């Protein structure tokens, strides 16, 4: 019997829809916070309305250990995760191998391969949106000159204040090399060498004493809002929600943004394979991706969705401007190399832990 878990905040009109609720239940795993809220409005509620199936939502923090340890016990079906993690999890056999080109429907007369971004279809997952890992700062901390380059994140002298970072080598190593002057296009090449890693950690040494580590992804905006950190690393969508929806004094430094890919994947031991595929098809339809982007600025992974993005229903902000891949953002952008990320995860983590211990 499938365990269905409804979060208290998840109240749906569609709850009344007649459904063989127990058999056709679906567990969708996402990240919580503003992103999950947006997914409820843009995807889960319309899905329930259309299919009569009310998915239950579980939350994960993105760590692969959770997939390994919790998924079976909690009957996960569909997982919203980062592409590099999906590659690793697929190789471990934790995700269902399937051809998503067949799973998703075609729209606007475009075949899925033409419509989706390059590299969207992987063995166990399909890319749904693009997000950016960025540095944001507390406007109040810098009444004069504002940080504008990723170099400023490492410049304690001119831009004093605590730096909030996740306890992980992701993103910050790329930023360290960008700050040294390495062109974005060469960052991963250089991080592939021992010398490059040494240089990155040497740069990180410069802010060692000013770092506050965050563990939950929503901590980043809270730390800025509370004034406990002056700059923080986080995701562009959450920072947008904090500043535009809740009026927090937070601004994004677009220079050095690391554009990542968010995928949908299906758990290997799902007992709802067909339903899970139906859900992924629905969740990646242009209308749903556009709705999501109108609430939280994560760029849709398919062209047909771009043309459907309108204004934010609350603030009236034209949302295309705030997407990570919006053309008018100044500064350097790195496209995250998921394959490289996946294959170097343990090496980077080992070196990061060495650095934490002061070696």
């Amino acid at each position, binding site marked *: 019997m499938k365990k269905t878990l409804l979060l208290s905040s998840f109240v749906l009109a569609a709850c009344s829809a007649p459904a063989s609720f127990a058999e056709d239940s679906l567990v969708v795993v996402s990240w919580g916070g503003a992103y999950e809220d947006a997914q409820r409005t843009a995807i889960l509620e319309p899905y329930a309305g259309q299919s009569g199936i009310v998915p239950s939502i579980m939350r994960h923090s993105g760590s692969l250990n959770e997939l390994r340890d919790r998924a079976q016990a909690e009957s996960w079906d569909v997982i919203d995760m980062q592409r590099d993690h999906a590659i690793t999890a697929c190789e471990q056999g934790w995700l269902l191998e399937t051809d998503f080109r067949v799973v998703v429907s075609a729209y606007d007369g475009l075949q899925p391969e033409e419509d989706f971004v390059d590299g969207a279809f992987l063995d166990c997952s399909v890319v749904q949106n693009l997000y950016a890992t960025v540095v944001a700062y507390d406007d109040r901390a810098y009444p004069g000159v504002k940080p504008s380059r990723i170099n400023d994140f490492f410049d304690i002298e001119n831009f004093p204040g605590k730096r909030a970072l996740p306890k992980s080598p992701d993103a910050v190593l790329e930023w360290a090399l960008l700050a*040294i*002057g*390495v*062109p974005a*296009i*060469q960052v*991963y*090449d*250089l*991080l*592939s*060498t021992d*010398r*490059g890693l040494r*240089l990155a950690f*040497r740069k990180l040494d410069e802010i060692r004493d000013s770092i506050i580590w965050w563990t939950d992804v929503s901590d980043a905006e809270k730390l800025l809002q509370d004034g406990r950190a002056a700059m923080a690393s986080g995701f562009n969508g959450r920072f947008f929600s904090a500043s535009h929806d809740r009026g927090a004094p937070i601004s994004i430094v677009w220079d050095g943004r690391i554009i990542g890919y968010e995928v949908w994947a299906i758990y290997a031991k799902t007992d709802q394979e067909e339903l899970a595929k139906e859900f992924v098809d629905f969740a990646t339809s242009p209308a749903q991706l556009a709705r999501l982007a109108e609430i939280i600025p994560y760029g849709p992974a398919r062209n047909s969705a771009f043309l459907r993005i309108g204004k934010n229903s609350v603030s009236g902000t034209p949302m295309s401007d705030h997407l990570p891949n919006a053309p008018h953002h100044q500064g350097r952008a790195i496209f995250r190399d998921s*394959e*490289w990320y996946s*294959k*170097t995860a*343990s*090496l980077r983590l080992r070196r990061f832990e060495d650095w934490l211990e002061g070696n």
Partner: protein
Amino acid sequence: MTHEGSALYRILALTAVALLVGTVASLAAIAFADTVFWLNNALLISPRMRVQFGGSPYIVLAATLLAPVVGGIIVGLLIQKFSAAKRPLGPPDVIYASQMRLPLPDARSGTVSTIAAAVSIGFGASVGQYGPMVYLGSLIGSAAIKLKLQIPSISAIAMACGVAAAISTAFNAPIAGLVFAHEVILRHYSLRAFAPVTVASATGYVMANVMFDRPPLFLVEFSGVENGYEFLLFALLGIVAALIAKIYMSAILRCSRLAANLPIAAWLRPGAAGLAVGVTALWLPDVIGIGKEALRFATIEGAFTPAELALLVPAKIVLTAVCLGFGFAGGAFSPSLLIGILSGALFWNLLDGFQLFENSGIAVYAVCGMMAVTSPVIGAPLTTILIVFELTRNYDLTVGAMVAVVFSNLVAYRIFGRSLFDVQLAARGIDLSEGRDHARLAAIRVADFATSEFPSALPHECANAALDRCSPGKWNEVYVADSNGKFRGIVYRNQQIVNSDALVSEIMQPADVVFREDTDVRQAMEKFVGFVGIAAPLLSSDDRLIGIVTEADVIRAYLDTVEELRDEENASA
């Protein structure tokens, strides 16, 4: 009217050739670079792939050791079994063909050489990719002769077009491509050549940028030289770089000679060099392949310690010399970039270590070193300066590098020669050091227009009888050879013959000027200075009289060549 019409025809035809050759050469250069990139990834030569196999170190170890050895054996077999030239072809062959108005070596040897170069670089040998690309470009250009367009010097122009497009695409540097083709390959700046080469170079740029969106190769952040006296330091760095370039080029030449004398079969030599690369790379991973990561690190303060740099510079010099000398196919240009940039970084480290001067940081010294070592290797200061400009898109950096480059070229010219290419050609008997006119005159043997129809006599004949045999007015002298054919002297008609019964041997005189079978037009012209006769005897190595060469024929050959060169250099359309 007909003259204008033919000029219009030439303009249209040359433009069409330039577009065609430019497009094909550019696509070929992209294909070459992509093949190398793919091989580097597949064989775990590139760090970005190696690091992803961090969990299985034995795979990386095996790739490091085996890839260059296997690559070497493939290259050795390719060159020895399938190439008629039996050696890799490169820029010297293009220069030779272009300067001497000769065709390139056969297309099959050229193609095999190109494939061998892609394998060499792809499998991690310490050789460069631009030399093979230059050859590939000229190979494509030379195919244009088949179109039979009836345009003077089309062959050299079309080759230059291919070269320009290849360089333009490879470096994403159209101006450098244009100038390289003129400075190194054509060595003149006629408008007839300049216009199509420009078109081809621009075509290469369009292909690289618009069609394929290739990024600039080497962006460097640099905000300007802070102190005026640093330009003196750049000049000093240029002089140091010249010495390093000289060591590098001499090492390459020496290794070629050494390899030829070793008791290793020719097809096995590249494999042996590959083994040296693999073993060295276990300790010094920066030496394997093209080393674009090391190139970048050299511009970052503290990426290398001075000791590491002092070790890497000689290691890269020796390995490149061994790879090229032992028969890997590839160029000397990319390795010289790396050797130069590491040298420049070392220079800055020493300078900064003593803290005698305030300075503008490592980047400008590294880039100055890079270009100052490279420039004497290709013998093209102007091209080098433009490459800095187009690669880095940084004006301040270019001005600094310019100073280092010219001082390096000045010194290297004195202590080595114009370029590695020219010295390699000189070793094959083609001396371009005194200009292309000298080289081209030196390539024409007077023996080619010797005549065997001349009055001759035996030593024991009666002199008057001998002179009577030749028709007065046409011949005023008789050439004397003994019964074995050995040349003995000349009897002149206007000689005072005292005794009418005198024998030829009694009155014959030695010749003022004597030519041999290998005498060329240039030497002949020098010998003819102060000469008053009509012709000079042509002798074999054992002094037999083969024929005579008239002064008029030598002068005509000389004038034809000079005029041909003048036409080529001043042609407008």
